[in-house]
Protein backbone atom coordinates (compact mmCIF):
# COMPACT_ATOMS: atom_id res chain seq x y z
CA UNK A 1 0.00 0.00 0.00
CA UNK A 2 1.17 3.47 -0.75
CA UNK A 3 0.39 6.74 0.99
CA UNK A 4 1.36 9.62 -1.28
CA UNK A 5 2.25 13.11 -0.06
CA UNK A 6 1.05 15.68 -2.59
CA UNK A 7 0.76 19.44 -2.61
CA UNK A 8 2.11 22.65 -4.01
CA UNK A 9 5.84 23.43 -3.90
CA UNK A 10 7.36 24.51 -0.63
CA UNK A 11 4.51 23.50 1.63
CA UNK A 12 6.89 21.20 3.48
CA UNK A 13 6.09 17.77 2.07
CA UNK A 14 9.64 16.46 2.16
CA UNK A 15 10.46 17.69 5.64
CA UNK A 16 7.15 16.34 6.89
CA UNK A 17 7.85 12.93 5.40
CA UNK A 18 11.40 12.76 6.76
CA UNK A 19 10.48 13.95 10.24
CA UNK A 20 7.44 11.71 10.37
CA UNK A 21 9.63 8.73 9.45
CA UNK A 22 12.04 9.72 12.19
CA UNK A 23 9.09 9.96 14.57
CA UNK A 24 8.13 6.41 13.59
CA UNK A 25 11.65 5.29 14.50
CA UNK A 26 13.10 4.80 11.04
CA UNK A 27 16.87 5.23 11.17
CA UNK A 28 17.77 4.87 7.51
CA UNK A 29 15.64 6.44 4.81
CA UNK A 30 15.99 5.22 1.28
CA UNK A 31 14.04 4.49 -1.82
CA UNK A 32 11.81 1.47 -1.65
CA UNK A 33 14.05 -1.20 -3.03
CA UNK A 34 12.71 -2.87 -6.15
CA UNK A 35 15.68 -5.26 -6.39
CA UNK A 36 16.48 -6.68 -2.97
CA UNK A 37 19.98 -7.63 -4.07
CA UNK A 38 21.02 -4.21 -5.24
CA UNK A 39 22.25 -1.86 -2.57
CA UNK A 40 20.46 1.43 -2.82
CA UNK A 41 21.71 4.55 -1.09
CA UNK A 42 20.06 5.32 2.22
CA UNK A 43 20.26 8.37 4.42
CA UNK A 44 19.85 9.10 8.07
CA UNK A 45 17.02 11.57 8.73
CA UNK A 46 19.61 14.32 9.18
CA UNK A 47 21.28 13.54 5.87
CA UNK A 48 17.91 13.32 4.15
CA UNK A 49 16.93 16.72 5.49
CA UNK A 50 20.09 18.23 4.06
CA UNK A 51 19.54 16.51 0.76
CA UNK A 52 15.81 16.89 0.21
CA UNK A 53 14.75 20.00 2.07
CA UNK A 54 15.41 23.46 0.70
CA UNK A 55 13.84 26.86 0.68
CA UNK A 56 13.54 26.77 -3.09
CA UNK A 57 10.63 25.17 -4.90
CA UNK A 58 10.93 22.06 -7.07
CA UNK A 59 14.21 20.83 -5.67
CA UNK A 60 12.99 17.30 -5.16
CA UNK A 61 13.04 15.65 -8.57
CA UNK A 62 13.62 12.11 -7.36
CA UNK A 63 11.54 12.05 -4.22
CA UNK A 64 11.90 9.71 -1.30
CA UNK A 65 9.72 6.73 -0.75
CA UNK A 66 10.05 4.95 2.56
CA UNK A 67 8.50 1.69 3.70
CA UNK A 68 7.31 2.03 7.29
CA UNK A 69 5.68 -0.25 9.77
CA UNK A 70 2.90 1.30 11.81
CA UNK A 71 2.97 -1.42 14.45
CA UNK A 72 4.92 -0.06 17.41
CA UNK A 73 8.43 -1.46 17.60
CA UNK A 74 7.70 -3.92 14.85
CA UNK A 75 10.03 -4.25 11.93
CA UNK A 76 8.12 -7.14 10.51
CA UNK A 77 4.50 -7.27 9.52
CA UNK A 78 2.65 -5.28 6.94
CA UNK A 79 4.32 -2.10 5.78
CA UNK A 80 3.01 1.08 4.30
CA UNK A 81 5.03 3.01 1.77
CA UNK A 82 5.16 6.75 2.35
CA UNK A 83 5.95 8.48 -0.92
CA UNK A 84 6.97 12.06 -1.50
CA UNK A 85 6.18 13.81 -4.81
CA UNK A 86 7.41 17.01 -6.44
CA UNK A 87 5.34 20.09 -5.67
CA UNK A 88 2.63 20.87 -8.22
CA UNK A 89 3.44 24.30 -9.66
CA UNK A 90 0.81 26.90 -10.54
CA UNK A 91 1.93 27.35 -14.14
CA UNK A 92 3.95 25.52 -16.71
CA UNK A 93 7.58 25.19 -15.69
CA UNK A 94 10.35 25.90 -18.17
CA UNK A 95 12.70 23.11 -17.10
CA UNK A 96 11.78 19.84 -18.77
CA UNK A 97 13.21 17.84 -15.89
CA UNK A 98 10.78 19.47 -13.47
CA UNK A 99 7.83 18.86 -15.79
CA UNK A 100 8.84 15.24 -16.12
CA UNK A 101 9.09 14.88 -12.34
CA UNK A 102 5.72 16.55 -11.82
CA UNK A 103 4.11 14.21 -14.35
CA UNK A 104 5.68 11.23 -12.60
CA UNK A 105 4.33 12.55 -9.31
CA UNK A 106 0.82 12.80 -10.75
CA UNK A 107 1.23 9.20 -11.91
CA UNK A 108 1.95 8.16 -8.32
CA UNK A 109 -1.05 10.17 -7.16
CA UNK A 110 -3.30 8.21 -9.53
CA UNK A 111 -1.97 4.94 -8.12
CA UNK A 112 -2.11 5.96 -4.46
CA UNK A 113 -3.98 3.95 -1.85
CA UNK A 114 -4.02 6.86 0.60
CA UNK A 115 -3.46 10.52 -0.13
CA UNK A 116 -2.01 13.14 2.18
CA UNK A 117 -2.70 16.52 0.65
CA UNK A 118 -0.21 18.83 2.32
CA UNK A 119 -1.04 22.55 2.44
CA UNK A 120 0.69 25.52 4.00
CA UNK A 121 -1.45 26.85 6.86
CA UNK A 122 0.37 30.17 6.81
CA UNK A 123 -0.38 30.94 3.16
CA UNK A 124 -3.17 33.45 2.69
CA UNK A 125 -5.42 32.20 -0.12
CA UNK A 126 -6.55 35.74 -0.96
CA UNK A 127 -3.06 36.77 -2.07
CA UNK A 128 -2.56 33.93 -4.52
CA UNK A 129 -5.75 32.81 -6.29
CA UNK A 130 -3.75 30.62 -8.68
CA UNK A 131 -2.27 28.64 -5.85
CA UNK A 132 -5.72 28.27 -4.37
CA UNK A 133 -7.02 26.94 -7.68
CA UNK A 134 -4.31 24.27 -7.70
CA UNK A 135 -5.17 23.22 -4.17
CA UNK A 136 -8.90 23.12 -4.94
CA UNK A 137 -8.38 21.04 -8.10
CA UNK A 138 -5.94 18.74 -6.32
CA UNK A 139 -8.29 18.16 -3.42
CA UNK A 140 -11.24 17.52 -5.75
CA UNK A 141 -9.20 14.88 -7.53
CA UNK A 142 -7.58 13.38 -4.44
CA UNK A 143 -10.80 12.76 -2.48
CA UNK A 144 -12.17 11.05 -5.55
CA UNK A 145 -9.19 8.76 -6.00
CA UNK A 146 -8.55 7.34 -2.54
CA UNK A 147 -9.09 8.01 1.16
CA UNK A 148 -7.52 11.43 1.60
CA UNK A 149 -6.80 13.94 4.29
CA UNK A 150 -5.71 17.56 4.19
CA UNK A 151 -2.55 17.97 6.22
CA UNK A 152 -2.19 21.62 7.23
CA UNK A 153 1.53 22.02 7.78
CA UNK A 154 3.26 24.86 9.63
CA UNK A 155 0.42 24.77 12.16
CA UNK A 156 2.72 25.98 14.94
CA UNK A 157 2.79 29.45 13.42
CA UNK A 158 0.70 32.41 14.41
CA UNK A 159 -2.64 32.68 12.67
CA UNK A 160 -2.67 29.02 11.75
CA UNK A 161 -5.78 28.37 13.84
CA UNK A 162 -7.83 30.75 11.73
CA UNK A 163 -6.37 29.37 8.53
CA UNK A 164 -7.19 25.82 9.51
CA UNK A 165 -10.77 26.70 10.39
CA UNK A 166 -11.09 28.31 6.98
CA UNK A 167 -9.62 25.23 5.28
CA UNK A 168 -12.16 22.98 7.00
CA UNK A 169 -14.98 25.13 5.70
CA UNK A 170 -13.60 25.46 2.18
CA UNK A 171 -12.64 21.89 1.51
CA UNK A 172 -15.29 20.10 3.48
CA UNK A 173 -13.02 17.25 4.46
CA UNK A 174 -10.85 16.17 7.32
CA UNK A 175 -8.02 18.57 8.09
CA UNK A 176 -5.14 17.55 10.32
CA UNK A 177 -3.08 20.43 11.70
CA UNK A 178 0.55 19.35 11.92
CA UNK A 179 3.95 20.93 12.11
CA UNK A 180 6.87 19.23 10.42
CA UNK A 181 9.23 21.32 12.53
CA UNK A 182 7.76 20.91 16.02
CA UNK A 183 6.15 17.52 15.33
CA UNK A 184 2.81 18.81 16.44
CA UNK A 185 -0.01 16.55 15.30
CA UNK A 186 2.19 13.59 14.33
CA UNK A 187 0.19 11.33 16.63
CA UNK A 188 -3.04 12.24 14.87
CA UNK A 189 -1.40 11.71 11.51
CA UNK A 190 -0.17 8.29 12.54
CA UNK A 191 -3.61 7.37 13.87
CA UNK A 192 -5.27 8.47 10.65
CA UNK A 193 -2.82 6.41 8.58
CA UNK A 194 -3.30 3.40 10.85
CA UNK A 195 -7.09 3.57 10.67
CA UNK A 196 -7.11 3.91 6.90
CA UNK A 197 -4.50 1.19 6.59
CA UNK A 198 -6.60 -1.19 8.67
CA UNK A 199 -9.77 -0.30 6.79
CA UNK A 200 -8.19 -0.77 3.38
CA UNK A 201 -6.54 -4.08 4.12
CA UNK A 202 -8.56 -7.03 2.89
Amino acid at each position, binding site marked *: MEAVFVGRPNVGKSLLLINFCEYLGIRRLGPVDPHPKERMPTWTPAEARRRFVSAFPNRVLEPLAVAVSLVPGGHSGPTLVLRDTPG*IPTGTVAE*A*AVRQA*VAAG*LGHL*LGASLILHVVDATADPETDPQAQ*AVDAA*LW*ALARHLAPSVVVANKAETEGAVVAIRRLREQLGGPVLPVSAVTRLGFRDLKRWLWEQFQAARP
Partner: protein
Amino acid sequence: MSGPRPGDRRDGPSQRPASAREVLFWVEEGRLQPVEALTHLRRMQAVHPAVGPGPRPSNPSADQAMDELERLVGLEPVKAVVRELRAFVEIQRRRQEVGLKTDLHTLHMVFSGSPGTGKTTVARILARLLQGLGVLPRGHLVEAERADLVGEYIGHTAQKTRELIRRALGGVLFIDEAYSLARGGDKDFGREAIDALVKAMEDYRDQFVLVLAGYPTEMEWFLATNPGLGSRVALHLVFPDYSPAELVAIARQMVRDRQYLLTREAEAELARYLERRGEQSRGWAGNGRFVRNLVERAIRRQAVRLAQHGGPYSREQLMTLTWSDLDPEGGGEWRRYSWGVPT
Protein backbone atom coordinates in the same frame (compact mmCIF):
# COMPACT_ATOMS: atom_id res chain seq x y z
CA MET B 1 14.48 34.93 -25.65
CA SER B 2 12.77 33.91 -28.85
CA GLY B 3 11.59 30.46 -29.85
CA PRO B 4 8.64 28.45 -28.69
CA ARG B 5 7.97 28.37 -24.99
CA PRO B 6 7.01 25.15 -23.29
CA GLY B 7 3.57 26.53 -22.62
CA ASP B 8 2.82 27.11 -26.29
CA ARG B 9 0.41 24.75 -27.87
CA ARG B 10 2.27 23.95 -30.99
CA ASP B 11 0.15 21.07 -32.14
CA GLY B 12 -2.80 23.03 -33.31
CA PRO B 13 -5.86 24.15 -31.39
CA SER B 14 -6.36 23.03 -27.83
CA GLN B 15 -7.51 19.46 -27.84
CA ARG B 16 -8.67 17.46 -24.89
CA PRO B 17 -6.49 14.65 -23.62
CA ALA B 18 -8.16 11.30 -24.08
CA SER B 19 -6.59 9.28 -21.30
CA ALA B 20 -4.92 9.75 -17.95
CA ARG B 21 -1.72 8.67 -19.56
CA GLU B 22 -2.06 11.36 -22.17
CA VAL B 23 -2.62 13.96 -19.45
CA LEU B 24 0.66 13.03 -17.77
CA PHE B 25 2.36 13.04 -21.11
CA TRP B 26 1.12 16.52 -21.90
CA VAL B 27 2.21 17.81 -18.52
CA GLU B 28 5.63 16.46 -19.29
CA GLU B 29 5.65 18.17 -22.64
CA GLY B 30 4.50 21.41 -21.09
CA ARG B 31 1.35 21.43 -23.18
CA LEU B 32 -0.84 21.30 -20.15
CA GLN B 33 -0.65 23.32 -16.97
CA PRO B 34 -0.63 21.19 -13.83
CA VAL B 35 -3.89 22.73 -12.62
CA GLU B 36 -5.59 21.89 -15.92
CA ALA B 37 -4.16 18.40 -15.67
CA LEU B 38 -5.76 17.94 -12.27
CA THR B 39 -9.12 19.03 -13.66
CA HIS B 40 -8.86 16.68 -16.61
CA LEU B 41 -7.91 13.78 -14.37
CA ARG B 42 -10.87 14.55 -12.14
CA ARG B 43 -13.18 14.56 -15.17
CA MET B 44 -11.83 11.19 -16.31
CA GLN B 45 -12.34 9.70 -12.87
CA ALA B 46 -15.95 10.80 -13.09
CA VAL B 47 -16.47 9.08 -16.42
CA HIS B 48 -14.65 5.89 -15.54
CA PRO B 49 -15.16 5.26 -11.86
CA ALA B 50 -12.16 3.54 -10.35
CA VAL B 51 -14.28 0.96 -8.58
CA GLY B 52 -17.35 -0.99 -9.49
CA PRO B 53 -18.23 -2.78 -12.70
CA GLY B 54 -17.74 -0.62 -15.76
CA PRO B 55 -19.93 -0.62 -18.82
CA ARG B 56 -17.41 -2.74 -20.69
CA PRO B 57 -14.86 -5.18 -19.34
CA SER B 58 -11.42 -3.70 -19.55
CA ASN B 59 -8.96 -5.37 -21.81
CA PRO B 60 -5.51 -4.59 -20.48
CA SER B 61 -3.35 -5.76 -23.36
CA ALA B 62 -5.59 -4.17 -25.98
CA ASP B 63 -5.77 -0.98 -23.92
CA GLN B 64 -2.02 -0.95 -23.62
CA ALA B 65 -1.55 -1.36 -27.36
CA MET B 66 -4.11 1.39 -27.96
CA ASP B 67 -2.33 3.68 -25.50
CA GLU B 68 0.92 3.07 -27.28
CA LEU B 69 -0.69 3.94 -30.58
CA GLU B 70 -2.20 7.13 -29.16
CA ARG B 71 1.22 8.10 -27.90
CA LEU B 72 2.64 8.15 -31.40
CA VAL B 73 3.02 11.65 -32.75
CA GLY B 74 0.63 12.65 -35.53
CA LEU B 75 -0.81 9.83 -37.68
CA GLU B 76 -4.38 10.97 -36.99
CA PRO B 77 -5.98 9.18 -39.98
CA VAL B 78 -4.25 5.93 -39.01
CA LYS B 79 -5.35 6.20 -35.40
CA ALA B 80 -8.92 6.86 -36.49
CA VAL B 81 -9.03 3.69 -38.61
CA VAL B 82 -7.51 1.59 -35.84
CA ARG B 83 -10.03 2.93 -33.32
CA GLU B 84 -12.81 1.97 -35.71
CA LEU B 85 -11.27 -1.44 -36.18
CA ARG B 86 -11.16 -2.01 -32.45
CA ALA B 87 -14.76 -0.97 -31.97
CA PHE B 88 -15.82 -3.20 -34.84
CA VAL B 89 -14.02 -6.26 -33.50
CA GLU B 90 -15.36 -5.74 -29.99
CA ILE B 91 -18.95 -5.38 -31.14
CA GLN B 92 -18.65 -8.47 -33.33
CA ARG B 93 -17.47 -10.39 -30.27
CA ARG B 94 -20.42 -9.15 -28.28
CA ARG B 95 -22.76 -10.25 -31.05
CA GLN B 96 -21.11 -13.65 -31.00
CA GLU B 97 -21.71 -13.90 -27.25
CA VAL B 98 -25.44 -13.41 -27.62
CA GLY B 99 -25.68 -15.70 -30.61
CA LEU B 100 -26.09 -13.13 -33.35
CA LYS B 101 -24.55 -13.51 -36.77
CA THR B 102 -21.05 -12.13 -36.91
CA ASP B 103 -19.08 -10.77 -39.74
CA LEU B 104 -15.49 -11.12 -38.66
CA HIS B 105 -14.25 -11.02 -42.19
CA THR B 106 -10.60 -11.01 -42.94
CA LEU B 107 -8.52 -8.09 -41.76
CA HIS B 108 -5.78 -7.98 -44.38
CA MET B 109 -4.53 -4.45 -44.90
CA VAL B 110 -2.57 -2.08 -47.05
CA PHE B 111 -0.30 0.55 -45.47
CA SER B 112 0.67 3.23 -47.91
CA GLY B 113 3.09 6.00 -47.07
CA SER B 114 6.59 7.29 -47.57
CA PRO B 115 9.52 5.65 -45.78
CA GLY B 116 9.89 6.62 -42.15
CA THR B 117 6.24 7.47 -41.57
CA GLY B 118 5.68 4.80 -38.92
CA LYS B 119 4.32 1.87 -40.93
CA THR B 120 6.36 -0.84 -39.21
CA THR B 121 5.76 0.67 -35.78
CA VAL B 122 2.02 0.72 -36.29
CA ALA B 123 2.08 -2.84 -37.67
CA ARG B 124 3.81 -4.04 -34.53
CA ILE B 125 1.29 -2.30 -32.27
CA LEU B 126 -1.58 -3.59 -34.39
CA ALA B 127 -0.36 -7.16 -34.00
CA ARG B 128 -0.51 -6.79 -30.23
CA LEU B 129 -3.89 -5.05 -30.37
CA LEU B 130 -5.38 -7.87 -32.41
CA GLN B 131 -3.95 -10.36 -29.99
CA GLY B 132 -5.47 -8.44 -27.09
CA LEU B 133 -8.83 -8.45 -28.84
CA GLY B 134 -8.59 -12.20 -29.35
CA VAL B 135 -8.34 -12.09 -33.14
CA LEU B 136 -4.79 -13.38 -33.39
CA PRO B 137 -3.52 -16.00 -30.96
CA ARG B 138 0.16 -15.05 -30.98
CA GLY B 139 0.28 -11.38 -31.96
CA HIS B 140 3.82 -11.40 -33.30
CA LEU B 141 5.07 -9.55 -36.34
CA VAL B 142 7.02 -11.16 -39.17
CA GLU B 143 8.73 -8.56 -41.32
CA ALA B 144 9.57 -9.51 -44.85
CA GLU B 145 10.57 -7.98 -48.14
CA ARG B 146 10.85 -9.26 -51.68
CA ALA B 147 14.04 -11.22 -51.05
CA ASP B 148 12.35 -13.23 -48.29
CA LEU B 149 9.55 -14.34 -50.59
CA VAL B 150 11.07 -14.73 -54.01
CA GLY B 151 13.32 -17.69 -54.73
CA GLU B 152 15.95 -18.39 -57.32
CA TYR B 153 14.45 -21.23 -59.34
CA ILE B 154 11.03 -22.48 -60.33
CA GLY B 155 9.21 -23.86 -57.33
CA HIS B 156 11.55 -22.23 -54.86
CA THR B 157 9.40 -19.11 -54.49
CA ALA B 158 6.23 -20.95 -53.53
CA GLN B 159 8.21 -22.90 -50.98
CA LYS B 160 9.81 -19.78 -49.47
CA THR B 161 6.51 -17.92 -49.36
CA ARG B 162 4.71 -20.83 -47.73
CA GLU B 163 7.46 -21.09 -45.15
CA LEU B 164 7.14 -17.39 -44.35
CA ILE B 165 3.36 -17.63 -44.01
CA ARG B 166 3.74 -20.64 -41.74
CA ARG B 167 5.99 -18.56 -39.49
CA ALA B 168 3.48 -15.71 -39.49
CA LEU B 169 0.44 -17.83 -38.54
CA GLY B 170 -1.18 -16.43 -35.44
CA GLY B 171 0.35 -13.02 -36.06
CA VAL B 172 0.93 -10.36 -38.66
CA LEU B 173 2.94 -10.80 -41.85
CA PHE B 174 4.29 -7.41 -42.85
CA ILE B 175 5.64 -7.16 -46.40
CA ASP B 176 7.54 -3.95 -46.96
CA GLU B 177 7.80 -2.50 -50.47
CA ALA B 178 5.23 -5.09 -51.51
CA TYR B 179 4.83 -3.59 -54.99
CA SER B 180 8.31 -4.83 -55.87
CA LEU B 181 6.80 -8.33 -56.12
CA ALA B 182 5.06 -7.28 -59.32
CA ARG B 183 7.76 -5.12 -60.74
CA GLY B 184 9.64 -7.76 -62.67
CA GLY B 185 6.87 -8.44 -65.20
CA ASP B 186 5.10 -11.71 -65.94
CA LYS B 187 8.17 -13.91 -66.13
CA ASP B 188 9.45 -12.77 -62.77
CA PHE B 189 9.21 -15.16 -59.82
CA GLY B 190 7.46 -12.36 -57.93
CA ARG B 191 4.24 -13.48 -59.65
CA GLU B 192 4.56 -16.85 -58.01
CA ALA B 193 4.89 -15.18 -54.61
CA ILE B 194 1.76 -13.12 -55.22
CA ASP B 195 -0.20 -16.22 -56.22
CA ALA B 196 0.98 -18.04 -53.10
CA LEU B 197 -0.02 -15.05 -50.95
CA VAL B 198 -3.50 -14.88 -52.49
CA LYS B 199 -3.99 -18.56 -51.83
CA ALA B 200 -2.81 -18.24 -48.24
CA MET B 201 -5.12 -15.28 -47.66
CA GLU B 202 -7.99 -17.61 -48.47
CA ASP B 203 -6.72 -20.79 -46.83
CA TYR B 204 -5.64 -19.19 -43.55
CA ARG B 205 -8.06 -16.27 -43.56
CA ASP B 206 -8.63 -16.26 -39.81
CA GLN B 207 -5.15 -17.26 -38.81
CA PHE B 208 -2.99 -14.36 -39.86
CA VAL B 209 -3.22 -10.79 -41.02
CA LEU B 210 -1.31 -9.73 -44.08
CA VAL B 211 -0.06 -6.15 -44.26
CA LEU B 212 1.22 -4.92 -47.60
CA ALA B 213 3.25 -1.74 -47.27
CA GLY B 214 4.88 0.71 -49.65
CA TYR B 215 4.87 4.12 -51.31
CA PRO B 216 1.32 5.36 -52.02
CA THR B 217 1.53 5.59 -55.83
CA GLU B 218 3.32 2.28 -56.25
CA MET B 219 0.86 0.52 -53.95
CA GLU B 220 -2.09 1.89 -55.87
CA TRP B 221 -0.65 0.55 -59.09
CA PHE B 222 0.21 -2.76 -57.44
CA LEU B 223 -3.33 -3.34 -56.16
CA ALA B 224 -4.88 -2.24 -59.42
CA THR B 225 -2.81 -4.69 -61.41
CA ASN B 226 -3.37 -7.54 -58.95
CA PRO B 227 -7.11 -7.59 -58.32
CA GLY B 228 -6.80 -10.96 -56.60
CA LEU B 229 -4.88 -9.24 -53.82
CA GLY B 230 -6.74 -5.95 -53.91
CA SER B 231 -10.16 -7.52 -53.47
CA ARG B 232 -9.03 -9.41 -50.39
CA VAL B 233 -7.71 -6.35 -48.62
CA ALA B 234 -10.24 -5.00 -46.14
CA LEU B 235 -8.53 -1.89 -44.86
CA HIS B 236 -6.41 0.79 -46.41
CA LEU B 237 -4.35 2.90 -44.01
CA VAL B 238 -2.73 6.04 -45.38
CA PHE B 239 0.34 7.30 -43.53
CA PRO B 240 0.77 11.03 -44.15
CA ASP B 241 4.20 12.65 -44.20
CA TYR B 242 5.10 14.26 -40.89
CA SER B 243 4.92 18.04 -40.62
CA PRO B 244 7.98 19.86 -39.24
CA ALA B 245 6.14 20.41 -35.94
CA GLU B 246 5.39 16.70 -35.68
CA LEU B 247 9.00 15.84 -36.44
CA VAL B 248 10.12 18.08 -33.59
CA ALA B 249 7.62 16.36 -31.31
CA ILE B 250 9.03 13.01 -32.43
CA ALA B 251 12.56 14.19 -31.67
CA ARG B 252 11.41 15.34 -28.24
CA GLN B 253 9.80 12.00 -27.52
CA MET B 254 12.85 10.02 -28.67
CA VAL B 255 15.14 12.18 -26.62
CA ARG B 256 13.00 11.70 -23.55
CA ASP B 257 12.76 7.96 -24.02
CA ARG B 258 16.54 7.87 -23.96
CA GLN B 259 16.58 10.07 -20.81
CA TYR B 260 18.04 13.11 -22.49
CA LEU B 261 16.72 16.64 -22.82
CA LEU B 262 16.74 19.09 -25.72
CA THR B 263 17.54 22.70 -24.96
CA ARG B 264 14.88 25.15 -26.02
CA GLU B 265 17.28 26.61 -28.53
CA ALA B 266 17.89 23.16 -30.04
CA GLU B 267 14.16 22.58 -30.41
CA ALA B 268 13.60 25.94 -32.02
CA GLU B 269 16.55 25.55 -34.39
CA LEU B 270 15.48 22.05 -35.33
CA ALA B 271 11.99 23.30 -36.13
CA ARG B 272 13.45 26.05 -38.29
CA TYR B 273 15.78 23.61 -40.04
CA LEU B 274 13.04 21.10 -40.81
CA GLU B 275 10.80 23.89 -42.05
CA ARG B 276 13.51 24.97 -44.48
CA ARG B 277 14.24 21.43 -45.64
CA GLY B 278 10.55 20.77 -46.14
CA GLU B 279 10.22 23.72 -48.47
CA GLN B 280 13.24 22.71 -50.51
CA SER B 281 12.50 19.07 -51.10
CA ARG B 282 9.43 17.00 -50.70
CA GLY B 283 9.73 13.27 -50.49
CA TRP B 284 11.98 12.64 -47.56
CA ALA B 285 10.84 15.77 -45.77
CA GLY B 286 8.40 14.03 -43.45
CA ASN B 287 10.71 11.26 -42.45
CA GLY B 288 10.76 9.99 -38.88
CA ARG B 289 13.82 7.90 -39.50
CA PHE B 290 15.77 11.00 -40.43
CA VAL B 291 14.96 12.50 -37.04
CA ARG B 292 15.90 9.29 -35.27
CA ASN B 293 19.29 9.26 -36.95
CA LEU B 294 19.74 12.90 -36.04
CA VAL B 295 18.98 12.22 -32.38
CA GLU B 296 21.22 9.18 -32.22
CA ARG B 297 24.06 11.09 -33.77
CA ALA B 298 23.47 14.00 -31.38
CA ILE B 299 23.85 11.60 -28.46
CA ARG B 300 27.21 10.44 -29.77
CA ARG B 301 28.33 14.00 -30.41
CA GLN B 302 27.27 15.09 -26.95
CA ALA B 303 29.44 12.30 -25.53
CA VAL B 304 32.42 13.53 -27.55
CA ARG B 305 31.78 17.11 -26.51
CA LEU B 306 31.57 16.22 -22.82
CA ALA B 307 34.62 13.98 -22.98
CA GLN B 308 36.66 16.80 -24.48
CA HIS B 309 35.38 19.24 -21.92
CA GLY B 310 36.32 16.94 -19.04
CA GLY B 311 34.49 16.17 -15.80
CA PRO B 312 33.02 16.33 -13.29
CA TYR B 313 29.64 16.38 -14.99
CA SER B 314 26.37 17.44 -13.47
CA ARG B 315 23.26 15.36 -14.02
CA GLU B 316 21.89 18.13 -16.17
CA GLN B 317 25.00 18.27 -18.34
CA LEU B 318 24.80 14.54 -18.91
CA MET B 319 21.20 14.87 -20.06
CA THR B 320 21.32 18.00 -22.21
CA LEU B 321 21.58 17.94 -25.99
CA THR B 322 22.32 21.29 -27.59
CA TRP B 323 21.78 22.48 -31.13
CA SER B 324 25.50 22.05 -31.84
CA ASP B 325 25.04 18.32 -31.12
CA LEU B 326 21.95 18.12 -33.26
CA ASP B 327 22.83 20.36 -36.22
CA PRO B 328 22.71 18.14 -39.34
CA GLU B 329 25.07 20.43 -41.18
CA GLY B 330 27.74 20.49 -38.50
CA GLY B 331 30.39 17.77 -38.25
CA GLY B 332 31.95 15.66 -40.97
CA GLU B 333 30.58 12.35 -39.86
CA TRP B 334 27.24 13.09 -41.39
CA ARG B 335 27.61 11.83 -44.96
CA ARG B 336 27.46 8.22 -43.90
CA TYR B 337 23.80 8.51 -42.98
CA SER B 338 22.61 9.46 -46.44
CA TRP B 339 19.77 11.51 -44.98
CA GLY B 340 18.24 8.50 -43.34
CA VAL B 341 16.51 7.41 -46.52
CA PRO B 342 16.96 3.75 -47.32
CA THR B 343 18.85 3.29 -50.55
